[in-house]
């Protein structure tokens, strides 16, 4: 029996612009089941991080969520009072970021910061929180955890800081971990260690992960399901196998064929022509239409609806829909 830890419906987040609000997240609907890893993937500026921020009401001002609903473990996040919201941040959903240095306080030891995080949500003694922190450090693979408790962030490597962040996120046993580009700033051998760790922890604790990334190879390493985002909207959603092995949306296919890892030497990479248009220049219909090699007349005019290719494979594309259901 599947249970949804996170359910997002028709989410819209916008920033004020000279000619009215500019949506950076536009009609996003997705869910994450208990124990599942959902990857939200897309290129810079597509709105994937803003989607993540919206879930915990962390959108930087003057941006705000303008429409839709977010249910996190049953709570209607957008309707919560600020104290209620504080209580669920960290406890129901915790977040880790690309650059752990900016999330850690530089003038306090990393151990004390985790102790504080624990005591924010639970009435436990400092001594008990300390021993739990050391155990967490050990669990996330920090060598000599007792000594590292007293280390300041700048004394740790990037990989170790990310481990501290993961320990802090795990400290209140969240049901959902939102991981925003958690390995992007790390070297490849360290990235592999952190991905292994996330995979293990996910299996062990059964927490769900919403993984935000630009890298389809990372998606393949960690995700069960994938949602692909382009210009503030979802364009395709499916299982890992479906998206990486049988992508149907021309944008998803373009992303895959741009990857040198999947290309053959000596053959040019298949490019997606041009660049993502600025929000002012978004076509009324499908936002990918201006770069799409398969676009037909109606694409720039009419937004494509959601079309189910299979139970767990959705696509928003007029051309695919026409081929499948003429």
């Amino acid at each position: 029996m599947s249970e949804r830890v996170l359910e997002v419906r028709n989410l819209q987040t916008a920033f004020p612009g000279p000619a009215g609000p500019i949506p950076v997240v536009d009609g996003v609907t997705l869910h994450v089941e208990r124990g599942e890893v959902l990857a939200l993937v897309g290129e810079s500026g597509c709105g994937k991080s803003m989607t993540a921020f919206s879930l915990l009401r962390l959108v930087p001002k003057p941006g705000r969520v303008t429409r839709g609903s977010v249910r996190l473990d049953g709570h209607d996040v957008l309707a919560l009072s600020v104290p209620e919201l504080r209580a669920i941040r960290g406890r129901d959903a915790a977040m880790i970021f690309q650059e752990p240095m900016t999330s850690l306080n530089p003038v306090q030891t990393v151990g004390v910061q985790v102790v504080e995080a624990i005591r924010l949500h639970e009435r436990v003694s400092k001594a008990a929180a300390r021993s739990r922190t050391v155990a967490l450090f050990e669990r996330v693979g920090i060598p000599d955890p007792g000594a590292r408790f007293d280390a300041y962030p700048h004394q740790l490597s990037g990989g170790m800081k990310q481990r501290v962040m993961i320990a802090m996120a795990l400290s209140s046993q969240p049901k959902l971990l939102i991981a925003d580009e958690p390995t992007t700033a790390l070297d490849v051998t360290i990235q592999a260690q952190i991905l292994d760790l996330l995979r293990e922890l996910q299996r062990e604790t059964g927490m769900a992960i919403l993984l935000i990334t630009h890298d389809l190879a990372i998606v393949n390493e960690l995700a069960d399901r994938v949602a692909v985002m382009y210009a503030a909207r979802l364009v395709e959603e499916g299982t890992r196998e479906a998206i990486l092995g049988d992508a149907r949306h021309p944008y998803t296919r373009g992303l895959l064929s741009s990857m040198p890892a999947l290309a053959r030497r000596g053959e040019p990479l298949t490019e997606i022509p041009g660049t993502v248009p600025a929000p002012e220049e978004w076509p009324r219909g499908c936002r990918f239409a201006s770069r799409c090699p398969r676009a037909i007349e109606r694409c720039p005019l009419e937004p494509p609806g959601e079309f189910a290719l299979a139970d767990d494979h959705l696509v928003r594309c007029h051309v695919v829909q026409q081929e499948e259901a003429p």
Partner: protein
Amino acid sequence: MSGPGALLRVEGLRTWFPIRRGMLQHTVGWVRAVDDVSFEVVSGRTLALVGESGCGKTTVGLSILRLVDPQAGRVLFDGDDLAALSDQEMRARRRAIQIVFQDPLGSLDPRMRVRDAIAEGMQSFGIGASESERTDRVAALLERVQLDPRQMWRYPHEFSGGQRQRLCIARALAVEPRLVICDEAVSALDVSIQAQILNLLGELQEDLGLTYLFITHDLSVVRYLADEVAVMYLGQIVEQGGTERIFEAPQHPYTRGLLAAVPSADPQRRSTAVRVLGDVPSPANPPAGCRFHTRCPEAFDRCSEEAPDLFTVEGGRSRCFLSG
């Protein structure tokens, strides 16, 4: 190891940076950024210098151009030892060697129009008889990198990240170099834009006969475009060879660990292999013996006591006793 057609040959390059302390700035130690590095790049081909942060790959590029000064070694470019030239002679040689960095915005003057940024180098090397001739050449270069020549009067901030990298490439090409050092030139770009720039670099190499020294941490890019690969770890080359051989039959345990760590995009396969454990030690205090032995899954007693040579192996070299 001197082969025919080597445009660039680096021999025993050593670039150490002093660590200074105290009021009198006494040198208390050295960061061994590049420590006895040798390789060559064949004319018209691509050598990738790969490794993780702090391995010294960027310092190699900067040392070749004498943007930092090496303490020892030779940099033979087309027969001349660049490391032995006077600053003035070196300036003249920079026409033949250009560099493209990761961050195009950081390498373009924000107050300079694109036309002037690209023409600047031509002027200093006396290319083009007049300003208007140089303007024509800028237009041709912009077209060459697939930008609209009418945009030459704009400023860098008016371009997207991918377009700015095209501008940097156009500026490098403006002085008709023979060797282009690409230092993480595509690393900051989104994958769809990265593909465009990689294709452009490939076309330019074919059309102009350019030689590339490609400095990067991204192994899938290396496999896609390099002819030869040199893998660096803590200031040294640990393995070197043809691209196919390196990827198909890596000899050095570090190369094997590095390749195993690359996430796989093949839905049939996830990477699960022997991991390189722990963090990279500091280049100011590299481990004795083999510098990799603290993280090596195959290390034995000798590795911590004695530094291995770069042994000749089939299709290249490997700095590991197991290859000796």
